């Protein structure tokens, strides 16, 4: 066959090996999303077929040489109602179904393992709680819900994993979350799908899904020595947060132990949940919300800490159930099952962080 045309042959071989019309389904949400997708394809095909068949049939039946004199018809309320109500009904089904999936994708379960993602021109940085850093890659285990807390350092990016059917915008100055549960080990595409400047198309990477055992091995082999919380603790000390935030009852700032996930009353009387976004805001824009009973003296650290630094601090404050347990924080990311609250479905929704004893 080769002698027919090497080029053509190349092409055919490539075609056959590469011709996939549908992306792999590698997460738990993928089949659910695809069910809706195929439902919509089906409805669309039926709708399109009806329209095309009618047009063709009428064109044949009533073309001029067969049907020289048109019969004037004013219209029909019954028909108008039919083709208003049927598409509307179908669209509404899609709307409800779609919204359910949307909520599912963006509402992480309480026991999800949290990984931080920082997007910047033009790379993705992933920070595991155990202190493993990755660039343009993300290693995750199967059989375990994974939550990503995403933020951008500069412009909009978008963290997209087609094989998982999930995608979330990385927004400058704001945490967003998405979660998924990988089902099939393998390597999948990671794309930046929001146009972000010159090398937008190079802002790609790999999602490596490992079996839980392999994942443990990977974690152990790529540790940097410090957990994220430990990084945060160092930062906390070097930025002299401790001058105000310490266990001393006379300290000028509130004690931060146990603050994460609790309800904080602000000086305006408003009660807010101390989630990641709240802590980030408290560090960078302290005047934005003053805790009741405290003077607005905390200086802003904007411009002094990178987004990764803030993440480390957040992780550290999360880990402060009490000061003495901090020391026990170790390198693994394994989670203790079961936890407190499934929060409200806001974007930056906290997932309780487990601490693990090895």
């Amino acid at each position, binding site marked *: 066959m080769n002698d027919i045309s090497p080029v053509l042959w190349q092409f055919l071989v490539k075609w056959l090996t590469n011709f996939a019309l549908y992306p792999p389904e590698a997460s738990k949400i993928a089949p659910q999303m695809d069910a809706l997708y195929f439902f919509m394809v089906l409805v669309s095909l039926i709708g399109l077929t009806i329209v095309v068949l009618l047009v063709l049939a009428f064109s044949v039946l009533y073309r001029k040489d067969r049907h020289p004199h048109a019969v004037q018809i004013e219209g029909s309320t019954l028909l108008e109602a039919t083709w208003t109500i049927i598409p509307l009904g179908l669209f509404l089904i899609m709307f409800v179904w779609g919204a359910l999936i949307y909520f599912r994708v963006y509402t992480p379960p309480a026991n999800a393992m949290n990984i931080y993602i920082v997007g910047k021109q033009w790379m993705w940085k992933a920070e595991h709680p155990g202190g493993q850093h990755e660039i343009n890659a993300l290693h995750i285990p199967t059989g375990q819900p994974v939550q990503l807390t995403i933020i951008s350092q500069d412009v909009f990016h978008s963290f997209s994993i087609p094989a998982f059917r999930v995608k979330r915008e990385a927004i400058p100055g*704001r945490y967003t979350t998405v979660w998924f549960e990988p089902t099939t080990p393998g390597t999948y595409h990671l794309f930046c799908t929001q146009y972000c400047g010159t090398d937008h198309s190079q802002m790609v990477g790999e999602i490596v899904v490992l079996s839980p055992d392999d994942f443990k091995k990977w974690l152990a082999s790529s540790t940097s020595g410090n957990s994220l919380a430990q990084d945060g603790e160092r930062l906390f000390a070097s930025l002299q947060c401790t001058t105000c935030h310490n266990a001393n009852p006379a300290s000028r700032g509130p004690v931060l132990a146990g603050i994460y996930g609790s309800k904080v009353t602000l000086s305006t*009387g*408003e*009660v*807010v949940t101390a989630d990641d*976004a*709240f802590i980030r*805001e408290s560090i960078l824009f302290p005047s*934005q919300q003053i805790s009741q009973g405290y003077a607005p003296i905390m200086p802003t650290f904007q411009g002094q800490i990178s987004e990764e630094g803030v993440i480390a601090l957040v992780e550290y404050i999360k880990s402060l159930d009490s000061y003495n347990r901090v020391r026990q924080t170790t390198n693994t990311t394994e989670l203790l099952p079961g936890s407190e609250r499934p929060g409200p479905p806001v974007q*930056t929704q906290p997932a309780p962080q487990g601490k693990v004893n090895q």
Partner: protein
Amino acid sequence: MSDLKEMEEQENHIVSPMIYLAILGALLVGTGLTVWASFIDLGEWHIAPGLTVFWNPVIALAIACSKAVLVVLFFMHVKYSTKLTKLTVMSGFFLFLVLIGMTLTDYFSRAWGRW
């Protein structure tokens, strides 16, 4: 053409200077009133935790709206205009509210005052 009848009505209506004068007075009074109102604390209304209405801005905007309505109705003659003009004014106002309202509700429902 089809609006011919209404058209003539409109053209012939001339607002008397006395009305203009009265409106002028009302507008100036309104201005004084907002300035005065801004200097006293009108308090607030707690509807629910985190949802509070402050009366000062509400009053200020209410006065501003009334002033604007006076200008539109009398100085701009909308009171004496065709239905079409009235409809045009209303639709502009409506869409203005849609732009502001629908955008703000997104912010409201995203936890007001914070990202």
